[in-house]
């Protein structure tokens, strides 16, 4: 099986302070990978690194595709909901790869947008201004945009946080469909039952790799997060320069 992402001794962080140290490993193409860990473990930082928003302080992230082959859902999306834009136009952003700066959004693309809106159950809301959508509806809209991006690699940062059960269930079904279509999905999650039920592979992070492998094996221990919590340390303003080198 070919690899979608290869981490080669990757350190990601902010202003020389690492949020994740020395991560090495491979995500196979078509993997459905859950990333878990305590708050501050570097999970969101990992996705930012993958989305190209953060350059590694050290090491290399090798990806199968370019930046256009990634669809990224940030944790708390920084969408300016006050901007007077319709749901239809908002979802249409997902087609950037095809439409770019100037290409007309015509028949075929409009049908794709309508289908994406339908797939998240928001048909009938196309003309609504995004300011009037509820939190759950907005999350559905963001998923419709992800769907339209049609990317082989999907990065989801806490996709089911702060939404009701029915919405979470619908959106999880979409994630499973993407997995079925052979896309690679990396999702940061907190719900262990959800991880156990649907995600074949799990990465446990605590500012470095704690465990990475089949979910059944990793979540078999009574408290899989115990080791992770122990490894958490706070940001140290006066931390010494890291002496560890690649193995």
């Amino acid at each position, binding site marked *: 099986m070919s690899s979608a992402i290869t981490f080669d001794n990757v350190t990601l962080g902010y202003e020389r302070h690492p949020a994740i140290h020395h991560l090495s490993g491979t995500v196979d193409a078509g993997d459905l990978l859950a990333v878990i860990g305590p708050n501050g473990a570097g999970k969101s930082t990992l996705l930012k690194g993958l989305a190209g928003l953060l350059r590694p302080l050290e090491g290399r992230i090798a990806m199968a595709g370019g930046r256009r082959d990634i669809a990224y859902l940030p944790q708390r999306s920084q969408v300016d909901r006050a901007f007077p*834009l319709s749901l239809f136009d908002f979802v249409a952003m997902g087609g950037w790869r095809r439409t770019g700066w*100037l290409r007309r959004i015509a028949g075929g693309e409009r049908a794709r947008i309508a289908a994406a809106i339908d797939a998240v159950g928001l048909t009938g809301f196309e003309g609504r*201004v995004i300011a009037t959508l509820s939190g759950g509806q907005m999350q559905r809209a963001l998923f419709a945009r992800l769907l339209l991006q049609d990317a082989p690699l999907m990065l989801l940062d806490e996709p089911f946080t702060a939404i009701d059960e029915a919405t979470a269930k619908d959106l999880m079904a979409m994630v499973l469909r993407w997995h079925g279509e052979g896309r690679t999905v990396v999702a940061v999650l907190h719900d262990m039952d959800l991880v156990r039920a649907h995600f074949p592979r799990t990465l446990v992070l605590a500012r470095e790799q704690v465990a990475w492998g089949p979910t059944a094996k990793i979540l078999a221990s009574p408290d899989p997060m115990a080791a992770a919590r122990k490894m958490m340390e706070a940001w140290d303003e006066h931390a010494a320069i890291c002496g560890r080198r690649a193995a």
Partner: protein
Amino acid sequence: MTAADFLHAPAEFLFGPFGEFAFMKRALVGSLALCLGAVPVGVFLMLRRMSLIGDTMAHAILPGVAVGYLMSGLSLTAMSIGGLATGLAVALLAGLVTRTTVIREDASFAAFHLIALSIGVVIVSVRGSNIDLLHVLFGTVLALDNGAVAFLASVATVTMAALALLYRPLVIECIDPIFLRTVSRAGGLAHIGFLMLLVLNMVAGFHALGTLLAIGIMILPAVGARFWAHDITGLLLAALMIGALSCWLGLLASFHLDLPSGPAIVLVAGGLYLASMLLGANGGLAWRLLPARHLEA
């Protein structure tokens, strides 16, 4: 008085001055041209929550204009080049700092415009000349010559073409900059391009309305339009209508009441904003005060 006379008088009052006097005609054409560029720029300023940053830009072009004046006197070309230079320097530096450091856009603009303004004051006081800054501060829309009208029309043309090109990335950059960064590098170009359009329209605006009031024709129609339109397309159209109406009524008021023309135009825009805030179909205050039962869904 016959019926024809009765109709003739208001028409004469409303349109007469523009047919009769060439300077009024040029003022109307020039200010309408200004609107075509400045109003859409103002709409995006408002949507990017940069309404007050326009004010700092007005101050940022002032020192350049003063230097232009000191070097070549009351030459519109020299003052425009000076204003463009300092305006662009402030906008680009502030934009770059915002994109690359922890400083937010408002703080970044505040810092650079204060530096520019103090440099301007230093230059003016060292040269110690007694400039008639009133022209620069309050503009001379009634004194626009053909060259200045052509300049305003060129700026409007460039602005509309550039906005058409930047429109999609600019809208996405306003709503969800992180998304745009993950799919394209267009965000930076759109941001910097927009700041350049802002400076260009500030310089155009200072010819007509003066540096202090140029921002008025950008922001007031935009915030007024917010009370009439739901989406970005409607917002742009409503703002353009308010802007054009302000120019026409402002120039009329200036002619009939013998008021300074620049402030008259911006005052009318301000009046239209207040009227929109009270009566606007989309969230106007009057509608909130009316007792109305809630709807079924």
